[in-house]
């Protein structure tokens, strides 16, 4: 017993100094510069308390392929319907605490979809038809709140987010602006159909998301699931027209609709190559369901969309306040949807406005 006590005493003499050394580890600095330059693999899922982040993004999308209902790829170039879309994204977020973040985002989208030019050739002449579906304008504003686990981020993190998309943008299509050109006779002219669509949903939408992040040294894995659903049915209009001579007369008819519910799952693996450079490979799965549109006083289900996309990209810190994100989207498989290749570039401005 006496020997055991002596041994315990010797062990204690060894252990206590080590525990003192361990206890002396310095708490990470919490100055503005350190927080603003925090690498992705060391960052929590939400902003730090007092941090303001403003993001401006531009997405160039090239819509040259689509997937039909059986998942077969269709070349829109060969169908004469390829198009390009430009999306300008604005987002602002603020960290209320280290565990609660508020934010809002909106976008402006421009896209013109042409159809194959077709001509009707008869003995009396040729009537050629061009058709352009233009989408232009602001999308709805989304306001969101995100909370994360109330503990310091070391290896893992978990966050929940709720968002409401407010129907503030124009959603009913504007009056078409069809024109006749090359008019030579009632049987010989070109008609150019031009439909003017807006980008709003017309009804509120709710989104619930959950995000998890796990980091092991320079490698991080992030997974996100989101479910979006409409608050109620909406009502919009369809434009019709009649042509007398070379003058179009327009009229519209109301119809009701219900936007799709959508489930999206994102996964990404990140490698922090340097403190200022993170490269990642993301995957994105989208499925929509339950939406419908009224035609001829009957409700018809919207085609259910599935889409799988991979998104390679990087995050580059160019100054304590400015970070650039860029990733490309490549569609692998899908059903009933377009498959646009896109590149999204975002410049992110960060600051602590109330922190001296």
């Amino acid at each position, binding site marked *: 017993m006496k020997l055991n006590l002596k041994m315990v005493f010797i062990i204690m003499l060894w252990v206590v100094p080590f525990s003192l050394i361990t206890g002396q580890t310095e708490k990470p600095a919490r100055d503005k510069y350190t927080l603003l330059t925090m690498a992705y693999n060391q960052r929590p899922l939400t902003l730090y308390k007092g941090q303001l982040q403003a993001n401006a993004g531009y997405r160039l999308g*090239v819509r040259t392929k689509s997937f039909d209902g059986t998942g077969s790829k269709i070349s829109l170039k060969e169908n*004469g319907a390829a198009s390009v879309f430009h999306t300008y994204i604005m987002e602002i977020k603020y960290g209320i605490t280290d565990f609660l973040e508020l934010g809002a985002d909106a976008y402006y989208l421009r896209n013109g979809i*042409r159809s194959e030019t077709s001509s009707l050739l008869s003995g009396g002449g040729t009537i050629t038809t*061009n058709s352009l579906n233009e989408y232009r304008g602001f999308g709805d504003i989304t306001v969101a709140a995100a909370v994360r686990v109330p503990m310091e981020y070391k290896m893992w993190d978990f966050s929940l987010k709720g968002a409401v998309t407010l129907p503030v943008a124009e959603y009913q299509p504007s009056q078409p602006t069809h024109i006749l050109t090359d008019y030579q006779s009632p049987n010989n002219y070109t008609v150019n159909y031009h439909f003017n669509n807006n980008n709003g949903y017309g009804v509120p939408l709710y989104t619930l998301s959950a995000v998890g992040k796990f980091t092991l040294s320079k490698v991080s894995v992030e997974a996100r699931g989101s479910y979006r659903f409409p608050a109620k049915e909406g009502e919009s209009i369809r434009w019709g027209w009649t042509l007398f001579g070379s003058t179009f007369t327009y009229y519209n008819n109301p119809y009701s609709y219900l936007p799709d519910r959508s489930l999206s799952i994102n996964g990404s693996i990140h490698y922090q190559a340097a403190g200022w450079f993170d490269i990642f490979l993301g995957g994105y799965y989208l499925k929509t369901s339950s939406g419908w549109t009224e035609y001829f006083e009957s409700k*018809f289900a919207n085609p259910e969309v599935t889409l799988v996309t991979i998104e390679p990209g990087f995050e580059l810190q160019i100054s304590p306040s400015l970070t650039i994100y860029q990733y490309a989207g490549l569609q692998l498989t899908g059903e009933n949807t377009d498959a646009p290749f896109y590149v999204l570039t975002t410049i992110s401005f960060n600051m602590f406005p109330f922190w001296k």
Partner: protein
Amino acid sequence: MKRIINILAIMLMTLIGFGQTEKQLVPGDLKQLTVVTEPSTLYKGFFRAGTALSYGIVDKYFTNDRKKEYFLNSAWATNSGFNFIFQYGITDRFQIEAAVPLSFNIRQSESRIYVPSADTTVEYSFTLKSQGLSDCYLTLKYQILNEKTSNTSLTGSLDVIIPTGTKNPTNINGERIMILRWATDVLLLPEV
């Protein structure tokens, strides 16, 4: 008093002399220069190799009224290029640059004509592709006004285009015409 002034004047001249010593730039400093801080030509002996990617889509045009409008006809055109660029500073003011561009361009147009009397549709597809090595070019740049001395530079350049790309169209296929029966697309959706 005069002697003191003379001593001070000599000391001041020495100070000015120190102030005028030029900072010696070592290779490490040169690599730290950015587009903003570096002069308009490379320093002597400095070599730079780079790549540049370009991608453009022809989607709109300017009308005679100076308005930007979508093309009305069904058409699709993209220009993409990948450049390999090599630059070398022969002197601090004189630079030579060589570029090897690869190009991938496409023009595509689709249309169809329905002839009711024959109850047929004729589909036209026109595609013009160009891909491969384009004309390489050699650029000589000289700083006429040297940025080092005046904080402003004026640079003259001379481009020499070397006709390395294929000039005339090849592999011309005949116009593809398909004669099909007219069909109307009907969208069938399940009723809810």
